[in-house]
């Protein structure tokens, strides 16, 4: 009882705390290990925790929005759990791709078209494909157990659950402001009182957000005025990485050329080498 009260004081729903504990337990059971730790129980615990999280959420304005949101969110979460618990790296990558698609769907749902599509292009289209490219070179039926188990299952499951808990707690105790950045309506500036607490935009607003006709233009304007320093810093960082990669390659080529020079001028007198030197 006291524990419950302490939780209430902190602004934590007891159900949320329970959900996080269940989540940690389920994740720990699901993570690949050397022994059979009971995947079925893991699945049950994870499902329970997802259900408990869901009980804590507020319903949106209409049932269509609800359905879309909950389907997207559960796709994202389930595939995220799949991404960390699969044994085969290729399956991990596929689940992760599904996570990204779910996230992109959530972005779309909130009217952030550019962000949603950029997530797919950058993560699913470029990074994951490159990862898959490497993974394809590994044997699908490798027998080395060493690479196929999660070595710190307890710590990672606990950390993950803690992160989820902190996020939920923060969102539960934060005051939401009407998200009108991308709509044509400008918030009233003259009123002194704080902005109204709105958990989500109404259906009408949401439609407006999603179908904002000059969406990308506004985003570009924001990025290159308000967030210019951030954009430039990120750009510089990427440039430095690019130059570094080129430098590494160039250095490698130089070393190889030196080695080749050493090899050819190395006092070997066989006929084969004569031929080789002439051809080179």
């Amino acid at each position: 009882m006291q524990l419950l009260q302490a939780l209430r004081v902190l602004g934590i729903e007891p159900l949320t705390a329970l959900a996080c504990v269940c989540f940690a337990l389920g994740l720990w059971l699901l993570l690949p290990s050397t022994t059979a730790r009971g995947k079925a129980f893991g699945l049950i615990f994870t499902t329970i925790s997802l259900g408990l999280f869901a009980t804590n959420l507020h319903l949106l304005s209409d049932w269509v929005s609800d359905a879309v949101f909950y389907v997207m969110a559960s796709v994202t979460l389930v595939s995220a759990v799949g991404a960390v618990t699969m044994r085969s790296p290729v399956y991990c990558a596929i689940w992760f791709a599904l996570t990204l698609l779910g996230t992109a769907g959530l972005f779309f749902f909130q009217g952030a078209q550019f962000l949603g599509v950029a997530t797919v292009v950058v993560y699913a289209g470029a990074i994951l494909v490159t990862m898959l490219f490497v993974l394809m070179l590994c044997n699908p039926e490798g027998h080395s157990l060493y690479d196929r188990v999660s070595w710190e299952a307890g710590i990672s499951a606990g950390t993950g659950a803690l992160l989820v808990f902190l996020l939920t707690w923060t969102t539960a105790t934060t005051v939401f402001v009407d998200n009108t950045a991308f709509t044509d309506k400008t918030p009233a500036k003259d009123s002194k009182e704080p902005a109204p607490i709105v958990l989500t935009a109404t259906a009408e607003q949401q439609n407006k957000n999603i179908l904002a006709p000059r969406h990308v233009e506004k985003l570009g304007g924001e990025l290159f005025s308000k967030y210019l320093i951030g954009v430039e810093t990120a750009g510089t960082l990427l440039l430095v990485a690019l130059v570094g990669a080129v430098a590494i390659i160039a250095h490698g080529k130089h070393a190889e050329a030196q080695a080749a020079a050493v090899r050819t001028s190395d006092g070997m007198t066989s006929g084969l080498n004569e031929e080789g030197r002439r051809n080179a």
Partner: protein
Amino acid sequence: MQATDPNVKWIEEPKLGLAGKMYIPAVIGGLATTTKHLFSKKMTVSFPEERPEIGNPLIYRGVHRLNKDDQGRVKCVACFLCATACPAHCIDIIAAPSPWPDRDKYCESFAIDELRCIFCGMCEEACPVDAIELTSLFDLTGRSREEMIFDKEKLLSVYDMTKDAEPMKSKSLGGAP
């Protein structure tokens, strides 16, 4: 073989000229060739409706026939040379004493398994009396294996069918040289 082996010949490809390096002329050249062929005359023969033209029927190796002489008798004298020459062993002859005075034997039965035959023409080469010949009929079909074993009557009927279009090849009998 090693790369440094003197027997390995490294060939330098010819250098491209400026037009070759510009790619576009080469692409247009290729497209011009394909476009020319797109509208050119087609080589395909639509078989059942159109019959392919056989250049010289006298040297074509199609279905066999058994020739008849001017009295309408089968010319075969049952010497078995064709059956001996046949590499596929598809000729089956039963000989009998001849009812006619000008030869000793004639073929009582003469069967060719057309499914076994490889249409090499050796029987035609071997025949001393020009009795067996290959015609230019090529579309022989049947519903069973038995049907494809051509007996004497069938082979003689092939002769009746083709004798006008394809005269006998022997010079002495007025055939083409």
